[in-house]
């Protein structure tokens, strides 16, 4: 049987030279020489003691002397039983095994409790051994093992109590107990017993605590199975932890001392155990029988057993900054650096970050970052440094004292100093995503901790740029070439497109991170001037694709608190426009697209054709609209650009005008889509400024030459220029603004009405050439009439020209109703405080009446009659006696006739007669004297 079994392993056996065992015998050793042997072992020792340098005092593992005479023979036997490949146990089998073990455990637990009740020491020991047998289960999944562990721990608590009770009642001495449990033949069970007995022993003999702990830790290395060892060491830590905290409750002074050891000793023990646990944990990685993924997964599930040591360390009440920075951190760092395992480094560094207080981290930041530099490539720097930065951020926002502490510790400069080398030490394994994410965390921390330090943020943005550049070095060469050839402007855009096309995919996390990097300071500062100090801002921005550049630029504008004026210098303003260039400038291709649309509309159909559907006409006459889903967003964002005008500091009016010029220069670059939103505010601001200049010049002793660059007239001319450019894109708005301009000019007593007339003339021009929609024609004409009626500085001739034109256009409106109403309005133009031309007034009303009568729809006609009546009444009441009695009577009769014809069914008819009634009532009750003639007219009643 033995032979048969050994066959498949022939290869194996060959190597070992069959049964007798080729041995690392004398010859071998002699050849290599004992000195080399010693050397090698010393190396091993050195490595070992180095990894535990802080613990050398207690580790005491260097007593070994070099062996001189080695004649050892190894003996070996073949397998005695069937080959049992534990690692190959399938999941189902594992579960079966687990079930059986758990069942056995339950049974044994009951027996153990019974034995404890009977107070039978020997029996208890036997039963407890059986309970612990569950933990000796062959390799199973950590999760299942954990379940067993918990169940066993539960039983061990009883045992702990029992042992303590035995000692208390002097049934056995603590020492004897400690020795007796060591007779347990299985090492795993024995060590669990030993830890419990040790705890009891420590409780009795505090002087011995140190020795006991040392002994326990030394003995624990008997378990070399990584998972079992980890749980065992976890049990040790937990026990120590509970002992420490137990005492802590009673006496807050110093938990370790209460236990019989100094804090430093407690630290050393925990560090020691931590080192061992970590080694075991890392060893799980080398279980070649499992797939890498599975190993990683299983390791993750037991990581807390290692981390438990760190958190226990952090909870030591005697721990202070000095101990931390002199002992704890160097040891942890040493262990982390030397373990050469990415998962361990990542997890443990994160543990350190999370476990210890911020104050400690602040004191040891430089050391911590130095450690980060030594971590092997692939470790998530972003999680570690990001986690630290997040903590600092929270800490700094806690109180002013904490922020001060952060500052005093030179936290930022430490980051600044170490970050480049950390990033470069990680080399290619560090993804752009990691770098950016780390930088984002640092940015957020810096914003919290150093609210005013724009420079710091700029440094971080600079790091981001560096990492982006090094990420696409090939692209940069190409870009340099192209910038050689083209001028500045084009170079910018080429650069942009190259960067965005190569490094950042649309919607990628990297892209989002850059956006966050750029927007976080904005959100924190809420001040454009602060942001403008970030020299690296636009460079970093240029790495994004255009859409995201616009988003960031918009958020720069959006995040300025309450539009506080803050820009006083042209340079600042230009800088701002540089920052938000993607928003302000038209992107290549955009114009063509719109142009195509516009052309398509105008070439296919003539806009003035009366039978055209309204929507088509609109395109050519009003705002150019691009069929885009985000047009609402576009408008919203452009509204932010438009608001830049409100950020300008308005202390000095002439320099303010200089700023306006700059603003217009930049806004012009936006193309029609943008200017129709961005120019109106500028126009208004200019009108406002013109008023201001005018008032300033009117002040006594402050005579400004009218020829001055920034005189009111100049500003109005500037407005005219602006508006003419707007005319091409948004005729209606331009027209309206021309009228506003007219109103504004009218406030200034200039030498002549040239400017005033110009505004009106251009408004008419726009009306005639650009407004095709009849509804818009009507409303616009009404606006012109209203404006014309309001201004009072036109020369009579000019007024006559303009008002006659109004009448002419009114009469030419498409519908009778529009004509009628517009003519009624025109009537007002001839009855003003400065012009009381009763006959022309009346003529307008008459023409309106004629138009109304030509209206074929009865209802509409009746309403129009009432409108004329109302208009006539107003003018009559203001003294226009040319509106004679017969006219009124005629209108009233027409109304009555029409409403009678319509009868009671028509709601419009009813409305009309109600309006008439109200007008008549008004005449009777409110102004009976004025209308006495009319009221006494026979035919009315």
């Amino acid at each position, binding site marked *: 049987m033995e032979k048969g079994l050994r066959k498949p392993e022939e290869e194996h056996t060959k190597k070992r030279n069959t049964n007798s065992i080729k041995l690392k015998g004398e010859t071998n050793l002699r050849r290599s020489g004992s000195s080399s042997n010693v050397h090698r072992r010393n190396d091993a020792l050195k490595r070992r003691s180095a990894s535990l340098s802080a613990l050398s005092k207690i580790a005491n593992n260097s007593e070994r002397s070099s062996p001189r005479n080695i004649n050892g023979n190894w003996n070996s036997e073949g397998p005695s039983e069937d080959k049992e490949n534990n690692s190959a146990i399938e999941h189902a089998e594992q579960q079966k095994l687990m079930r059986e073990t758990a069942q056995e455990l339950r049974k044994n637990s009951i027996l153990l409790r019974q034995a404890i009740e009977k107070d039978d020491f020997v029996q208890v020991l036997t039963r407890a051994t059986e309970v612990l047998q569950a933990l000796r289960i062959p390799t199973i999944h950590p999760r299942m093992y954990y379940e067993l562990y918990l169940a066993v721990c539960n039983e061990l608590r009883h045992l702990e109590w029992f042992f303590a009770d035995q000692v208390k009642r002097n049934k056995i001495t603590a020492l004897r107990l400690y020795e007796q449990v060591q007779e347990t033949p299985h090492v795993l069970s024995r060590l669990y017993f030993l830890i419990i007995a040790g705890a009891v022993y420590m409780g009795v003999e505090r002087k011995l605590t140190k020795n006991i702990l040392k002994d326990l830790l030394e003995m624990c290395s008997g378990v070399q199975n990584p998972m079992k060892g980890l749980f065992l060491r976890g049990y040790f830590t937990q026990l120590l932890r509970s002992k420490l905290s137990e005492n802590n409750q009673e006496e807050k002074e110093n938990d370790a001392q209460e236990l019989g050891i100094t804090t430093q000793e407690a630290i050393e023990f925990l560090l020691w155990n931590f080192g061992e646990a970590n080694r075991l944990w890392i060893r799980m990685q080398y279980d070649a029988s499992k797939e890498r993924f599975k190993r990683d997964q299983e390791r993750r599930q037991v990581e807390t057993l290692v981390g438990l040591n760190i958190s226990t360390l952090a909870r030591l009440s005697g721990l202070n900054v000095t101990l931390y920075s002199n002992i704890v951190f160097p040891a942890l760092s040493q262990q982390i650096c030397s373990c050469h395992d990415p998962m361990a480094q990542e997890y443990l560094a994160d543990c350190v970050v999370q476990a210890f207080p911020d104050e400690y981290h602040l004191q040891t930041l430089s050391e911590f970052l130095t450690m980060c530099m030594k971590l092997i490539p692939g470790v998530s720097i972003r999680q570690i440094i990001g986690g630290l930065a997040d903590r600092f951020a929270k800490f700094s926002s806690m109180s002013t004292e904490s922020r001060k502490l952060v500052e005093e510790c030179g936290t930022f400069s430490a980051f600044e100093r170490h970050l480049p080398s950390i990033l470069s030490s990680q080399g290619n394994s560090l993804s752009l995503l990691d770098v950016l994410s780390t930088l984002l965390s640092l940015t957020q921390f810096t914003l919290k901790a150093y609210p005013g330090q724009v420079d710091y943020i700029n440094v971080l943005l600079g790091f981001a740029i560096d990492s982006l550049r090094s990420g696409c070095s090939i692209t940069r060469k190409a870009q340099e070439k192209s910038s050689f050839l083209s001028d500045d402007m084009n170079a910018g855009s080429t650069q942009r497109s190259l960067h965005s096309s190569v490094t950042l995919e649309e919607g990628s996390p990297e892209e989002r991170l850059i956006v966050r990097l750029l927007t976080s300071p904005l959100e924190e500062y809420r001040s454009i001037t602060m942001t403008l100090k970030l020299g690296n801002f636009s460079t970093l921005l240029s790495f994004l694709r255009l859409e995201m550049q616009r988003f960031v630029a918009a958020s720069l504008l959006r995040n300025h608190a309450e539009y506080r004026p803050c820009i006083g210098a042209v340079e600042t303003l230009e800088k701002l426009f540089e920052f938000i260039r993607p928003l302000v400038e038209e992107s290549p291709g955009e114009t063509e697209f719109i142009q195509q649309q516009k052309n398509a509309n105008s070439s296919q159909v003539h806009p003035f054709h009366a039978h055209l559907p309204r929507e088509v006409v609109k395109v050519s006459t009003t705002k150019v609209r691009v069929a885009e889903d985000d047009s609402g967003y576009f408008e919203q964002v452009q509204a932010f650009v438009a608001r830049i005008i409100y950020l300008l500091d308005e202390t000095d009016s002439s320099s303010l005008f200089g700023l306006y010029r700059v603003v217009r220069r930049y806004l012009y670059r936006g193309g029609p889509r943008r200017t129709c939103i961005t120019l109106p505010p500028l126009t208004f601001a200019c009108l406002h400024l013109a008023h201001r200049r005018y008032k300033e010049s009117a002040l006594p002793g402050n005579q400004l030459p009218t020829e001055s660059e920034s005189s009111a007239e100049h500003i109005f001319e500037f407005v005219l220029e602006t508006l003419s450019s707007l005319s091409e894109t948004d005729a209606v708005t331009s027209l309206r603004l021309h009228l506003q301009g007219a109103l504004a000019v009218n*406030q200034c007593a200039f030498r002549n009405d040239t400017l005033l007339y110009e505004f009106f003339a251009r408004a008419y021009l726009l009306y005639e050439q650009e407004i095709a929609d009849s509804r818009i024609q009507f409303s616009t004409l009404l606006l012109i009439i209203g404006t014309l009626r309001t201004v009072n500085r036109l020369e009579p001739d000019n007024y006559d020209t303009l008002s006659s034109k109004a009448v002419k256009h009114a009469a030419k409106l498409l519908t009778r109703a529009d004509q009628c109403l517009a003519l009624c309005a025109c009537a007002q133009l001839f009855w003003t405080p400065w012009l009381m031309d009763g006959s022309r007034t009346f003529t307008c009303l008459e023409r309106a009446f004629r138009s109304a009568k030509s209206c074929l729809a009865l209802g509409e006609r009746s309403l129009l009659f009432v409108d004329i009546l109302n208009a006539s009444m107003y003018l009559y009441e203001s003294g226009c006696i040319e509106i004679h009695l017969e006219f009124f009577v005629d209108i009233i009769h027409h109304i009555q006739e029409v409403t009678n014809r319509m009868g009671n069914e028509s709601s419009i008819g009813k409305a009309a007669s109600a309006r008439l009634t109200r007008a008549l009532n008004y005449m009777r009750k409110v102004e009976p004297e004025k209308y006495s003639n009319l009221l006494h007219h026979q035919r009315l009643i």
Partner: protein
Amino acid sequence: MVLVLTIGDFHIPSRVAAVPLKFRELLVPGKIQRVLCTGNLCNKETEEFLKVICPEIQITKGDMDDVQSEYPERCVTNIGQLSFGLCHGHQLIPWNDPNCLAALRRDMGVDVLVVGHSHLLKMTETVDGGLIIDPGTATGAPVADSLDSKRPSFILLDIQGSKVIAYTYEIYGEDMKVDRVVFERLASFK
């Protein structure tokens, strides 16, 4: 008791950047039952701002509102026992003429006419027992036909049957002034 916000002439962003912070802090959702807006919002955001305060809203078209907007030129609505007319006012020539406004109120047959355009907060009782309310400009937007600067203002109406208690809110520099005026026995004439 119904709280009605009368407000208008925002001119955002063409004349001012935003509604003053003080007003924004005051005008929060859940307090106001109706909004009568005279117009000249000039911007979709402003409409959203008002709709958030209260979804029950009437808006008429101002002279600077988008020509494409669906706002009516004027509208009539009943609140409590009173009828309200709403109109921006730029359509009435001559502009801001009290007689003209009185005539419109009469012609529309409403108890209260809410108008804008003048950017001056004003409440006038007409000889025939009506009320004309101009809430002024909510943002203090300047007008071209005046050299004077304008004060941000709005009027909150507390309608109790036929009684109107008007609270006027005006910002003078850094301070906000609130006044209370009571109008009783409106609707005497229809």
